[in-house]
């Protein structure tokens, strides 16, 4: 992993692709969407009851009607109110269940896709970009769908129904109400031209600020040791000021939009009043109808504001949605049955896809493998051919950048060879390493030099590998890697570890990593400097654990310490992407060459 090209962010979907994903997610809920439409339509009609009946009250009063009629109309208003409220509530709950279910599917697919992305792709995009997709964007879309969407949809229905009601009273009112439209149209156009761009920039600026905050907090110890607290805070402040500047710009633009909408309301209302005034004077419209028309139009204000006023949140959510749909473009394979396949693959253990490989130990064959991390960087591995016998333990040594980690990743299948093939298995039954990694994960396991302890209990961390392992089994594997400190943890296996729990020391984290391998029971194991942080005092325990770990399987150990290398069956010395020495350690120690030089430096 000597070099990747940073800044090649994950894709953002086009509006069309985004829409295609959304309609795919909504497809299973068609029946409920129809139900939502019907219920909200009825609710909006019932909602018109109050102003229509108030218009009737005015008419009854103007005609000198009876108190009894008034009371009946009052009762009708109350009933209409209850019906509208009840139907509205049902509609909103239905919307919530549809959107939240689809959204859950979407975010699960996104996380699932991210989990399966090649490590190299994630490194190119940067952790920040990936994290902001699975947390920030998921949250902004979630917020919008739970807060904004129901409001907007109900508002939309009541606008449509009210407009229709206005026409039903008298066509002239509907025409008058159109006076509001040109300015509304202009305002929306203004909004759509200016605001989405501003919000996109705002989200980017906020993501940059979040990156600076996270980096500063994660590296707090180093920041203070370097005496650079002020520089880091100033950097965050500068990014924050940039985000605020963009936000204020956006707020002013949005304000113009609202001002336009308000004036449009004024124009529409004035027109309805003028028509009402003139029609009543001319005797072509009853006073009750004129009142109802004015009240109808007035009633539009709220929904209109809710609808158009939430467009900014919808714009933010839309940007987030495009970023989520963009992640889905990276899905390998296609078809909706993919997820079921995954579940079987990890749950069952007796998966049909594993069958061709058969039980281990397995051989590993590299045939004319070359690899480059892309960009303008030189190839890391050159035309490498290598055969590792079943059950053999191979140690790889060499300077940084010699291509050791890349070799390890290719064997594990987390990287795919640029040229040549990497196969695991014997003869005809051998399968490509990256295929094996994708289709039968866990048969070949790689312990990366970067360790990570997952947030949550220590038991949960280990059960990522083996969900069904009981506590006794977890204790057993921890004992075998010499993790005696577990007994001193405040709550044993249930102690919270990771970012928000107990911080494990580097060597403790490495012991956990080895325990995971014991749980996984892979056929082939690749250890990339997996014991580099182990203090000398604990090395004996850990070496014993390593012996257990490599006993029944093929193992590639990218060795940090030469005493580990000399315990292996075979040593490969790498330099500049090539194998320069290959043989049993006891032979290489005697032979003139780089390994003997290393060994002499080590034991001097």
């Amino acid at each position: 992993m000597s070099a990747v090209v940073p800044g090649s962010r994950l894709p953002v979907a086009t509006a069309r692709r985004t829409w295609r994903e959304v309609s795919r997610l909504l497809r299973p809920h068609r029946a409920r969407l129809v139900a939502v439409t019907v219920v909200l339509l009825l609710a909006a009609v019932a909602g018109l009851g109050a102003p229509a009946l108030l218009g009737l009250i005015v008419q009854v009063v103007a005609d000198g009607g009876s108190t009894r009629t008034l009371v009946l109309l009052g009762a009708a208003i109350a009933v209409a109110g209850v019906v509208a409220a009840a139907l509205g509530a049902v509609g909103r709950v239905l919307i919530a269940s549809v959107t939240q279910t689809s959204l859950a599917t979407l975010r699960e697919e996104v996380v699932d896709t991210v989990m399966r992305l090649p490590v190299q792709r994630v490194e190119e995009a940067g952790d920040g970009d990936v994290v902001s997709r699975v947390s920030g964007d998921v949250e902004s879309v979630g917020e919008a769908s739970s807060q904004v969407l129901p409001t907007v949809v109900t508002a939309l229905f009541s606008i449509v129904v009210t407009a229709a009601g206005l026409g039903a009273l008298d066509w002239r009112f509907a025409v008058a109400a159109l006076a509001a439209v040109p300015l509304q149209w202009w305002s929306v156009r203004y909004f759509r031209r200016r605001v989405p761009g501003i919000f996109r920039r705002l989200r980017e600026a906020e993501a940059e600020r979040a990156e600076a905050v996270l980096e500063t907090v994660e590296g707090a110890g180093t920041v203070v040791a370097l005496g650079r607290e002020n520089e880091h805070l100033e950097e965050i402040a500068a990014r924050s000021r940039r985000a605020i500047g963009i936000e204020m710009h956006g707020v002013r633009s949005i304000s113009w939009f609202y001002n336009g909408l308000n004036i449009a309301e004024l124009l529409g209302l004035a027109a309805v009043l003028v028509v009402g005034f003139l029609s009543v004077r001319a005797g072509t419209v009853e006073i009750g109808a004129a009142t109802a028309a004015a009240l109808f139009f007035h009633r539009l204000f709220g929904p209109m504001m809710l609808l158009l006023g939430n467009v900014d949140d919808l714009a933010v959510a839309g940007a987030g949605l495009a970023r989520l749909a963009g992640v889905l473009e990276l899905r390998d394979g296609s078809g909706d049955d993919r997820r079921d396949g995954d579940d079987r693959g990890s749950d069952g253990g007796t998966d049909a896809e594993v069958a061709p490989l058969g039980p281990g130990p397995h051989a590993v064959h590299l045939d004319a493998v070359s690899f480059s991390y892309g960009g303008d960087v030189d190839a890391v591995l050159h035309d490498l051919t290598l055969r590792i016998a079943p059950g053999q333990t191979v140690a790889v040594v060499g300077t940084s950048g010699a291509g050791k980690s890349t070799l390890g990743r290719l064997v594990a299948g987390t990287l795919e060879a640029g040229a040549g093939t990497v196969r695991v298995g014997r003869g005809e039954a051998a399968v490509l390493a990256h295929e094996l990694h994708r289709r039968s994960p866990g048969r070949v396991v790689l312990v990366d030099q970067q360790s990570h302890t997952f947030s949550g209990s220590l038991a949960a961390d280990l059960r990522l590998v083996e969900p069904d392992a009981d506590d006794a089994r977890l204790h057993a594997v921890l004992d075998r890697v010499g993790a005696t400190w577990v007994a001193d943890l405040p709550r044993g296996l249930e102690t919270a570890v990771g970012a928000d729990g107990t911080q494990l020391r580097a060597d403790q984290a490495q012991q956990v990593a080895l325990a995971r391998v014991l749980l996984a029971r892979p056929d082939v194991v690749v250890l990339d400097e997996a014991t580099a942080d182990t203090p000398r005092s604990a090395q004996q325990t850990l070496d014993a654990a390593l012996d257990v770990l490599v006993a029944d399987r093929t193992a590639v150990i990218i060795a940090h310490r030469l005493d580990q290398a000399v315990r292996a069956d075979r040593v490969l010395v790498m330099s500049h992407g090539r194998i320069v020495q290959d043989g049993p350690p006891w032979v290489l120690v005697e032979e003139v060459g780089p390994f003997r030089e290393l060994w002499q430096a080590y034991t001097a």
Partner: protein
Amino acid sequence: MTPPPTARTLLRGVLTGGGRRRGATVAALGLTGHQVAEILVPVVIGVVIDAAVTDSEVGSLVLWLGVLTAVFLVLTFSWRAGFVTGTAAFQSAEHELRQRIVATVVDGGARADEAGDARDGAPASPGSAAPGAGTVHSLATSDAAAVAGVIWLLGEQVAAFAALLTAAVTLTLISPPLALAVALGIPLAWVLNRLSHPLERRTREAQRSAAGAASLAADLVAGLRVIAGLGAAAAGARRYRSASAQLRTARISAARAESAFTAASEVLAGLLVAVVGVAAGWLTLRGDLSIGALVAVVGVVQTLQYPISTVGMLGPSLAQKRASATRIAEALSGASSTSAVGTTEHHAPPADGDHLEIAAGDAVVRLEPGALVGLATTPELAQRVSDVLGHRVTARPGEAHLGGADLAALGAAVREHVHAPPRAAHLFRGTLAAAVAAPAPRETDALDARITGATLLDDVVASLPGGRTGDLAAGGANVSGGQRDRIALARALHREEAYLVLHEPLTAVDSVTEAAIAAALPTLLRSPTGRPRGVLLITDSPVLLRACTSVVRA
């Protein structure tokens, strides 16, 4: 030193601190102007309808349309003033809170937990540990936003009360008995307040659930290399699915509560409209009210739903802000109490730094400028020595001395003389040159050739697209572990302090490179400007220890 913040002082600070008193006031006044104008619109509608039946004069139509225009201009532009000014005040308050949280956490987070450190073998206990990055992130974003949002809460509530008052006055002017309608609004607001508590609770649960799912996703991404290596993608995705399903349930349940609340407020407002409509109609039939007054009354009552439900949400909104403020206050005072030890004694007299001495178990390590001393010891003692010298934990009296000064009394001032970065120090984003020679990021030739040569940095430069000015990803994620070690070592060697304490600086480099660097270390006992310095190597590595002039084993 300022007293530790409380929820109350934080919320008050949002409204009055940083010159926001004016902004918060303008925001409240602006929203008030908007709400009052909203109430006046139906009144004008009533007057116009009345004019149509009574005098039918076009002149009065024009006059009242002029009034309507004035009302709308007040409505829209006072809202604009409130919105823009309020946003500026909100942003300023949120910014201030965020900077304060990060500053405090950086200061406190740099200091390891002492209680846990004292127990041999056991890692730090989680209770007193500094908050994790995820927690800080949610404090600095959602909690800070909630607390700063008190500006909006105040504005909306003032505006809602003003709207109710305007309605009461208007109805009193039309017909005093109808003002009772507004009085009816008070028990309605109370009923809604009762109903809004479950809504608030479930909304908060949904938010917590959302934050949990988000931090789980972020954690899974952070551990993606581990997951990929184990082939545990499906298990990771499954874990997220269960958090996601929980979030889905929480959001739907919050939507139910919200729908119930909205429906209740609609039903109550509908009843109010029905009662007032019938009463006003009856008064009009008796001849006590004009038709226009009737229209105005029902119009006003119809607009009351919004201010009543706003008042009805006061209790829970305030509770939510107070909860966020309490979380921030706890983080601020918790972290500042750990750092208080260092800051209060910051003005201790500068030490005369002719030697550095620290106890490691029963042994004593003594370091002088120009010396290269090794310390080989248990992981716990190694951590302790490094943390004490870096002032990440407070020294016990007598444990360590710089010249004649006890480190226990010296506090953070020790950092002026001793550079002791934490083990596996963090690399920050930026160019390689800036990462290594941090104080002079602009000069690409700020790198000391002696140091870059000794740490074999040229090899890193060659592998990085862009070379010295090539970009390093956050945490040095785009270079290998061995390269990270060498960059961090080169950065430490570029420092000017009289003492350098390096804790396992080369765990990830290969043996060849380690041997080469070890051989060059004795030539680096002078800082880039030529001041002699003492280097303490806390390590298990025989190769590094062999390079030292003396080695202490403890």
